């Protein structure tokens, strides 16, 4: 496989990942397998690139004080263990099971994104003793409403174990699993939407590192192959976010959602042994 082709495909994957809000990994892995890269190598390379894209975007939000560092650092304890377990499972897994799992997760995230409800955020009504002990209360300056929004986080005793599952999927499939993490932050812990996406970004970085360490030890990371891909996905995500700021076109989003649906469906079919 020509590194130039890999570079170009990765730019596209990073771009679509950023434009659709699904993250680069979920586009990169199917794209690489379509180019003939073995799925385990594709997953291993993807998870290294996830460190770059998530840390890059997390940095700005942390400095803007939107990210809740304590929520992030508490939940990381669960996601990194999940990430290690997930990556270890991938190493011993049969290829078709990975295709199947990837297809299911891609289509599920696709559904979550497609059915995205724009409901208002509901503050946590009751803060349990454990969440209070964890000092999860936070606040940030919201530019849209022009004031500082303070909030509480609740049900951390439930959020933690669920994040183990999110970490497991991230390590297993080489993706950030951001959609899943945001869902847990929103629905279980009651974080405001901006806080939940930015905190998820912070967590994704260390979770991806945990997964990477397992793939590295298994000898699945070829730096020569990974280098143009990592660079490409960061460039693509950078362009994607810049375009995203200027272009809030629903038609464009729909177009990418169709692309993602096709990718998910073909992964699922390959997992089921259907040759396209």
């Amino acid at each position, binding site marked *: 496989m020509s590194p130039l082709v890999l570079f170009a495909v990765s730019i596209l994957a990073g771009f679509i990942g950023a434009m659709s809000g699904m993250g680069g990994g979920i586009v990169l892995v199917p794209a690489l397998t379509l180019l003939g890269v073995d799925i385990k190598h594709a997953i291993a390379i993807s998870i290294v690139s996830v460190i770059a894209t998530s840390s890059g975007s997390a940095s700005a939000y942390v400095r803007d004080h939107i990210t809740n560092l304590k929520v992030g650092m508490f939940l990381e304890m669960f996601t990194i263990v999940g990430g290690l377990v997930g990556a270890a499972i991938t190493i011993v897994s049969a290829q078709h099971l990975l295709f199947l799992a990837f297809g299911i997760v891609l289509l599920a995230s696709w559904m979550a994104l497609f059915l995205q409800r724009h409901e208002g955020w509901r503050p946590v009504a009751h803060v349990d003793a454990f969440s209070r002990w964890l000092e999860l209360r936070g606040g940030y300056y919201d530019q849209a409403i022009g004031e500082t929004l303070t909030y509480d986080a609740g049900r951390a005793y439930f959020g933690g174990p669920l994040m183990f599952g999110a970490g497991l999927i991230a390590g297993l499939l080489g993706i950030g699993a951001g959609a899943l993490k945001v869902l847990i932050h929103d629905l279980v812990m009651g974080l405001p939407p901006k806080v939940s996406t930015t905190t998820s*970004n912070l967590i994704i970085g260390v979770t991806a590192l945990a997964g990477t360490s397992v793939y590295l030890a298994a000898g699945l990371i070829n730096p*020569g192959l990974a280098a143009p891909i990592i660079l490409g996905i960061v460039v693509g995500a950078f362009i994607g976010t810049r375009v995203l700021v200027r272009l809030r076109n629903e038609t464009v989003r729909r177009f990418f959602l169709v692309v993602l649906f096709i990718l998910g469906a073909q992964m699922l079919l390959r997992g089921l042994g259907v040759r396209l």
Partner: protein
Amino acid sequence: MTSLLKTASAPADQTLHKAKFEMETLVGYLLAGGVILSMIFIAAGLAWDWVTTGRLGLDYTIKGMNFFEFIVADVKEVVLTGFGPRRLVSLGIATLMLTPFTRVAASMVYFAVVERNWKYTIFTAFVLGVLTYSLFLR
């Protein structure tokens, strides 16, 4: 992933964030610096390889080495024989992997020394411990 390496813009609420300010600045700049540095190393390595060989074709795996041995071996090579395309790419990947690792380590020190928050010092120490263990795997 909505904004990659966006410059800080929101006015920080000083009364609310006074105590946390340094922690957030530290973590924010560590992450940005690490990613930018690693991208420079990787891009430089690939460009160097392209210019000298006329094609992009670095191909090597890291096998039989844990992450720390990989870093030591790479730095040793750089010190002994200078930079080269392959060494730059390896350095870039090592820097990338060290970025979240350093972020966790710095947070732990900050919680312990500046905030004296033992609860979170233990939490971050656990994360750091698990990551260090996993990076020793080979």
